[in-house]
């Protein structure tokens, strides 16, 4: 580590320590604040206890199932929709802003209608996840299709590739970086929406469990579960971002050279 890198890490550590210290000070402020701001150590112990409980594996299974189905359904619809819109310049001009508007609507407010359609339970959570994944994936797909360097398409055509081979050999690899990025955002949205739906209705899933701890005033357990979910979702997002960036670098470099 160079001196500068050490200074950088010292600052990061300092910020974290300052926040934790503030939390501890607030917890010792009296007037029952220790219930609202439990000791960080208690939250850590509660975290191990929460993971050890029998319900954790069942909840994890439900949440993962909902996230996976929601993401797969949402991204399938999003990729198709985005591909159809992106294939035409006129369709892009008309529909792309509508995709942005739809993406801007908080999907949680559609929950009452989704409950009427899908009932409560894992289907609902998956439906909410799908709804949140569709639009970012579609937006990314439109961008991916519209920004393929025309020379790639001309080369494909000059080699006499049919529509199927054009898709698999030219379109897909050329837009892989943007498509994977869109899928990553879609997955992140599916995670958040499924878990949020669990916090509102039903009696299963990690989101439900976090709110259950809140209702039964098991505050350290609630903090532990929420922090666990937050950190897990953040790490998945960042991890995928790095993997995608490293795996698709050569395509992006080729685009940059063309650009």
């Amino acid at each position, binding site marked *: 580590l160079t001196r*500068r890198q050490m*200074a*950088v*890490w010292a*600052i*990061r550590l300092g*910020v974290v320590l300052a926040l934790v210290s503030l939390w501890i000070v607030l917890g010792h402020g009296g007037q029952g604040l220790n219930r*609202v*701001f439990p000791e960080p150590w208690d939250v850590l112990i509660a975290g191990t206890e929460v993971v050890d409980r029998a319900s954790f594996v069942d909840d994890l299974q439900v949440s993962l199932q909902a996230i996976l189905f929601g993401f797969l359904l949402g991204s399938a619809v999003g990729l198709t929709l985005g591909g159809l819109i992106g294939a035409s310049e006129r369709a892009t*001009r*008309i*529909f792309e*802003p*509508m995709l*942005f*508007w739809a993406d*801007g*609507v*908080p999907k*949680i*407010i*559609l*929950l*009452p*209608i989704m*409950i*009427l*359609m899908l009932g409560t339970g894992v289907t609902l959570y998956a439906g909410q996840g799908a709804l949140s994944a569709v639009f970012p994936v579609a937006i990314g797909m439109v961008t991916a299709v519209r920004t393929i360097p025309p020379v790639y398409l001309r080369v494909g055509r000059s080699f006499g590739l049919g529509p199927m081979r054009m898709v698999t050999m030219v379109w897909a690899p050329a837009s892989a970086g943007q498509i994977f990025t869109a899928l990553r955002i879609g997955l*992140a949205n599916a*995670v*958040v929406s499924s*878990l*949020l739906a669990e*916090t*509102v209705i039903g009696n299963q899933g990690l*989101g439900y469990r*976090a*709110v259950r701890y*809140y209702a039964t005033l098991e*505050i350290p357990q*609630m*903090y532990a579960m*929420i922090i666990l*979910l*937050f950190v897990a*979702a*953040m790490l998945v*997002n*960042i991890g995928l*971002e790095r993997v995608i960036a490293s795996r698709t670098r050569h395509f992006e470099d080729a685009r940059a050279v063309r650009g």
Partner: protein
Amino acid sequence: MVAREEVTMSAIETPVSAPPKSAAAARRSGAARVIGVRLAVVAAALAVVELLDRAALLPPTFIARPTEVFARLWALIVGGPFLPALWDTTRTVLVAVVIAAVAGTAVGYVLWRSRLLSEALVPGVAALFSSPIILLYPIPLVIFGRSATAVIVLSVTYGFLPIILYTVRSFSEIPPVLLRVSEVYCLSRWQQFVLVVLPAAAPKMFTGLRMGTTMVLITVISMEFLAQLSGLGQQIQMSALRFDTTGVYAYITGVVLLVVLVISGLQVIERRLQR
């Protein structure tokens, strides 16, 4: 000379009844056509739902007739609780946006001034921005209770991250000559900030403000819905609890229109600023 003659000739030959369209006019008419097509597509989709519903081909439990939804929305606007709820939501959004903008700009300025701080903290801010902060919503509810403060705290947390990132980026892209001129004129730090830095960076900073405002709007409505506090989010939840499907659709339509209005309005301002 030839070019001038060609211009003159073409001007003479152009019939008086059909004056040449300027590029701006052509752009405007093209944009109007696109908006017309969009409206037609939405109207056609709603007409299909209406016809299918009238033909009893859709389950009435979760589909409301578009005509009834718009009639209800109008009734809610004219004499119902829509406008007070809209005001509640707007007020919370405005307060949160102002706090996020001031705090985000201040933090962004500090990070821009210190390269070491920027190197240490900007990656963390970027990572937080792409994190599911909304999942933390029970925490402000525990700390501040079911109050507007809880909504504002969470929405500010979400909204001020893009403002920080775009402030640092926009300040870093200010031409160094402007900063040197301010030094030559011996401006104080505050004068340099107000007279040089802010005006030079404003167009690009607005992108951060637009993203922050959108995040705040989404978070406020989501929190109102989740915690049943006040505003449009709470009205949707209350209509759902009364099994008033038409009411749910009417409020959702209102929220969609609000989101479209805010997003498009901010995009128009951003384009004008960056032109």
